[in-house]
């Protein structure tokens, strides 16, 4: 066999494997979307869930998922950003840095139920935060941090050192070089990290059952005061997210239309992630162009 033939066969093989992956992906997405889409209606999206009769919607759960995502990112993104800057710009290449990295990575493979119980015993009970979006956001921070830190650090690393040298040569401080030159250049990578971790937030259930809770009290969407008990902005209220709702409906749901609620909710979840994915990418490209002065 000539190298050219090998090359062709190998390329075919790679294409074939990719095709299988694509087929699996399409099957999964198709299965979720097609079995769920017929149950998605305006009514489904805008009515509260029901615990025993048919016809419940997912309004509050959908909002809770989004709100939880925002809160989680508010807590975990700055932490991750600061730590990634430390790891990539300040930390020396020694055993201490290695230890810190290992410690952060260990977080990512903890089973979520363990993190959930930890969050429950520490934040919900000991710190008296109670079942709340805030407790949920803190628990999710544990999963988010390793992902975010690693991807941000990776994208910071990918910025060539010449950019740093150029910043220093201009008389800028290290910090200002990071803020003004490195970060904008690393932005697309950082965004990918955020998108990936956002997926994890949307999809997580086990950790939230014990922290954000699995009941969705009636929300008042007209109440914009975040300190009011029933306000939709109150971070201290218990909140059932979409993934938790899917879990609950599937495991202990007694509603007659549990199957269709679960299918519909899964489809909505996928679509929301899709929108988020493309939205974040579009915003990222826009910001990148603006910040790096590209046209």
């Amino acid at each position, binding site marked *: 066999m000539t190298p050219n033939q090998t090359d062709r066969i190998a390329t075919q093989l790679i294409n074939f494997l990719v095709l299988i992956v694509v087929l699996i992906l399409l099957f999964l997405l198709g299965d979720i979307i097609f079995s769920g889409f017929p149950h998605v209606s305006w009514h489904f999206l805008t009515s509260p869930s029901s*615990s*025993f*009769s048919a016809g419940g919607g997912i309004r509050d759960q959908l909002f809770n998922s989004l709100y939880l995502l925002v*809160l989680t990112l*508010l*807590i975990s*993104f*700055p*932490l991750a*950003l600061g730590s990634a800057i430390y790891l990539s710009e300040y930390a020396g290449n020694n055993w201490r840095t290695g230890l810190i990295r290992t410690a952060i990575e260990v977080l990512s493979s903890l089973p979520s139920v363990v993190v959930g119980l930890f969050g*429950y015993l520490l934040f919900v*009970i000991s*710190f*008296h*935060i*109670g*079942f*709340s979006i*805030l407790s949920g*956001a*803190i628990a999710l921070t544990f999963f988010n941090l390793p992902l975010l830190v690693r991807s941000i650090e990776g994208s910071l690393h990918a910025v060539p050192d010449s950019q740093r040298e150029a910043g220093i040569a201009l008389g800028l401080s290290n910090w200002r070089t990071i*803020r*003004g030159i490195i*970060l*904008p250049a690393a932005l697309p990578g950082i965004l990918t990290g955020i998108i990936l971790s956002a997926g994890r937030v949307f999809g997580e259930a086990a950790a939230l*059952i*014990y922290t954000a*809770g*699995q*009941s969705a*009290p*009636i929300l008042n969407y007209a109440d914009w005061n*975040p*300190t*009011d*008990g029933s306000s939709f902005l*109150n*971070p*201290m209220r*218990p909140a059932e997210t979409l993934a938790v709702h899917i879990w*609950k*409906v*599937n*495991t*202990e*749901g*007694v509603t007659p239309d*549990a199957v269709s609620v679960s299918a519909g909710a899964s489809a909505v979840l996928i679509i929301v992630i899709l929108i988020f994915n493309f939205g974040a990418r579009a915003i990222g490209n826009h*910001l990148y162009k*603006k*910040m790096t002065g590209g046209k």
Partner: protein
Amino acid sequence: MHKKTLISTVVAFSLAGLLLGGCGSKSSQKSASDSTKAAKVTKITAVGSTALQPLVEQAAQDYQASNKNVNLTVQGGGSGTGLSQVQQGAVQVGNSDIFAEQSSGIKADKLVDHKVAVVGMTPVVNPETGVTNLSMAQLRDIFTGKITNWNQVGGKNQKISVINRAQGSGTRATFEGAVLEGKKAITSQEQDSNGTVQKLVATTPGAISYLAFSYVNDKVKAVSIDHVKPTDANVTTNKWTIWSYEHMYTKGQPNKATAGFLKYMNSSKVQGSLVKKLGYISIHDMKVTKNAKNVVTK
């Protein structure tokens, strides 16, 4: 200049997020005092059994609509969590599928039991097994592994696959208490939720498991025991023996607000409609009582 402001906005925003996180518990207390003004809001948290959660959650919503001075949070987490937490005093109410006396590590004399509903459970089989009735002894032998083929009990020639519930779960404790007479079940598949068990029994040929009445649908076959049908009426007279209470435990006597809610749970408004809608049997309909040692008295 533009990019700098942008980044600093991001940083400032995120730091604000951190601060918000740090002071969260303070703002919650404030929110409580803000919204009350006249009356003081009492916070009640009920944690535990996932099976009981929908009932208590719905009742709590209805109750809060007319009692503005109570703020109820109802969560799952499992009976074990409920009992542990109410014993520690971390929550006001611990929901449980089993008697506190039946779980080791719980000082039952410190807890006060409030029975709010009765749940009946029935063995279910895959419809293709061809079995509709079993004797109690046969059922026991199936779950202890002595009978392994459906043709030994009048069904098709098919291997029995036992699907049990999670060790320590209330459903399993009830079932084993009523059926196994202290014998040990064979090690087999275990699932921890009614929904999963229902799906598995419906699709696995030769499968047997047990479900709360409300989860039985046309895809699984409920089996009579000694020709007694699993119906609510048979449970109330103990003719059907596999049933248990749903408990709401408090540590010592409940405080005033909690007592009010528990009284509401026991009112005919909840017992007469909500309990039945969610597939439970009202505690008022029971003609017998059962204690923690499974002794039934009329």
